[in-house]
């Protein structure tokens, strides 16, 4: 038996036309994007571009039409994502809503929640973030303590989330909370969809070491929410979150978020590289190409209704190893002025500093390898 049985990626429909649609849309908007805006692009923001993607039917692609979706396949959606990433298109505002929050609402949300959020998400106008980590709950997510208590007026939420990417730009946070007093670990957790303009919520920025504001702290101080903020089944939050994380880990952003650095390297080197640089480019290309095959195979599994948790962990772990090695290999192989203004200079300087983030978002290598080891029956 193969350790990682493969699913061939054979999307239906006119895929070249879909690619061209994304490329044309990027070409219409890219003039206003700076080099650094295109770096790590699923974390950078352009509201007009998000709306344009929505208007073109390229958000909420797999969701039901009645909620503003387009009922296309996961594989078609995959093609759109990889084109956006390869082009370095700033898609951060809608990324989380499109990738997982919307998908989770389709699966577990109430009719009212779907009607409230999904059409706006599919238009690229409603953005979401994910409230998971807390000051004392990082890799050990099951230790979350922020609480929601059922009262006669509704849910009363108290506590703090941290490392919440994009909270300052988001309209709502799908938040994992302890809804059963005295419960332990994976028991007694539930997900609530929290509108971030609710009184009692404070969002504070955390500036990361690249100087960028993605991270936030969210404080909940006696925040009162309607009872229908509950998403899915009370007490089933852990199971719901785990399914969501498979969506979070398997996508092409796990090996393409720094693709434009490879592009800049190739363009800076030109058509006649030395043998050494040609080998370096060849090696990086081989890794990128292989990751794409693996990522596409995982997407095909999702499309077939499987839950490829181990495969997603493999893609993410290999992907972040590749993405962390990329700037270091470029730095070692090519003499780049890190204070310079060329695209390669700016991108290399940025990615050297951003690379540590690749192994924290979506799970550290140790966490991911633990998931794989479990899949292999070792624990």
């Amino acid at each position, binding site marked *: 038996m*193969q*350790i*990682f049985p*493969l699913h*061939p*990626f*054979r*999307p*239906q429909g006119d*895929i*070249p036309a879909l*690619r061209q649609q994304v490329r044309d849309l990027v070409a219409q908007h890219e003039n206003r994007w700076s080099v650094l805006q295109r770096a790590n692009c699923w974390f950078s923001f352009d509201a007009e571009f998000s709306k344009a993607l929505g208007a073109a039917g390229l958000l909420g692609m797999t969701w039901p039409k009645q909620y503003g979706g387009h009922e296309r396949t996961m594989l078609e959606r995959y093609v759109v994502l*990889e*084109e956006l990433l*390869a082009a370095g298109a700033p898609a951060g505002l809608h990324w989380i809503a499109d990738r997982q929050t919307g998908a989770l609402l389709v699966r577990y949300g109430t009719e009212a929640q779907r009607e409230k959020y999904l059409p706006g998400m599919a238009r690229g106008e409603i953005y979401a973030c994910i409230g998971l980590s807390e000051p004392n709950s990082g890799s050990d997510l099951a230790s979350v303590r922020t609480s929601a208590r059922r009262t006669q007026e509704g849910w009363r939420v108290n506590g703090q989330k941290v490392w919440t990417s994009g909270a300052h730009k988001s309209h709502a946070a799908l938040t994992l909370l302890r809804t059963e007093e005295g419960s332990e670990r994976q028991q007694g957790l539930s997900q609530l969809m929290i509108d971030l303009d609710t009184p009692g919520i404070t969002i504070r920025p955390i500036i990361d070491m690249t100087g960028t504001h993605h991270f936030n702290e969210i404080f909940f101080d006696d925040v009162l929410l309607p009872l229908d903020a509950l998403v899915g089944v009370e007490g089933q939050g852990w199971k719901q979150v785990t399914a969501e994380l498979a969506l979070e880990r398997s996508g092409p952003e796990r090996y393409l978020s720094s*693709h434009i650095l*490879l*592009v*800049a*390297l*190739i*363009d800076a*080197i*030109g*058509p*006649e*590289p030395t*043998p050494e*640089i*040609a*080998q*370096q*480019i*060849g*090696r990086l*290309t*081989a*890794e*990128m*190409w*292989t*990751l*794409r*095959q*693996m990522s596409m*195979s995982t997407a095909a599994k999702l499309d077939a209704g499987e839950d490829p948790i181990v*495969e997603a962990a*493999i893609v993410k*772990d*290999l992907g972040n190893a590749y993405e962390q090695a990329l700037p270091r290999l470029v730095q070692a192989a090519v003499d780049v002025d890190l204070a310079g203004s060329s695209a390669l200079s700016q991108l290399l300087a940025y990615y050297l500093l951003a690379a540590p983030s690749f192994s924290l978002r979506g799970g550290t290598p*140790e966490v*991911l*390898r*633990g998931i*794989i*080891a479990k899949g*292999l*029956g*070792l*624990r």
Partner: protein
Amino acid sequence: MSENRALLVEMAEGLFADLAGASFEAAWPRVAEAGFASLLVSADQGGFGGDWGDVLAVLRLAGLNAVAAPVAEPIIAHALLAQAGIAAPAGLVTLVGRSGRTPFGRHADAVVSVADGVLSLHARGAFTVEEGTSLAGEPSDLVKLTGAPAASAPCAADLDGLGAFARVAQASGALESAFTLAIDHVNTRVQFGRTLAKFQAVQQALAEFSEEAAAVDAAAAACAAALDVGDAGFEIAAAKMRLGLAVDRATPIAHRMHGAIGFTMEYALNRYTRRLMAWRSEFGNDAFWAEALGRRVAVLGGHGLWREVAARTDRLIGQEA
């Protein structure tokens, strides 16, 4: 999986499992008799009429069982001869690549080579053999073409590329076997009062190993799919380079997990790891394929790389998986 492939796999699984550990003298007659050599030859020409996906399935199983006989080379040699309209001679027909090193060359009845777009078939007597031994302890002989070819014809195939694909396919099987041995070992070996598998450091190392095996499987499958629609130059270069990384990362883990037992001739691990180490060099090493791929990418340019990568899988749409 097609019905034909399922039957082929069942037959190869049984035969190769039987031949695991057998010598060339014991293994080769049975491999020859099974008729793998005609796998890619069309049914019209009296062959099996298979595709590259079938070849991958068979070579993976050959690697999985460390079969000590040439399985890959005759398949490619017969396919190229059939394409060129040259009748294949009886016996072992194998390949001579750019290095001249030919597995089991001393046993060959004829050899196929391709140079400057021309395929040549040399019969015994028209080539010399200088004997050598591979890392896996198999004949690895230097074949020199000294006489006139028995036949020649124009040929567009990249013989080293096809050989490289074969090594990736075989290696995907060998990686799985080395991995299975390591898993079995850590699940049974007790130290410090518990099985090695209970140690986090061991779990993490084996998880890394599985990632490398998965990468090679994905690369091999992508090459087979590309070969079935036509040009696979890009895919094969990437896959053979990626295999180099996988061998680099995974074989040390396999040995580390086993301690001294894995370093003995008696224990089976070396059948796989020695072949993996040898195959990394055969039909072009990391540097050879990385440079070939890097030059190709440099000409495409940064954006051209992505367009090429996407177009190469989009051409598979509508093809049977």
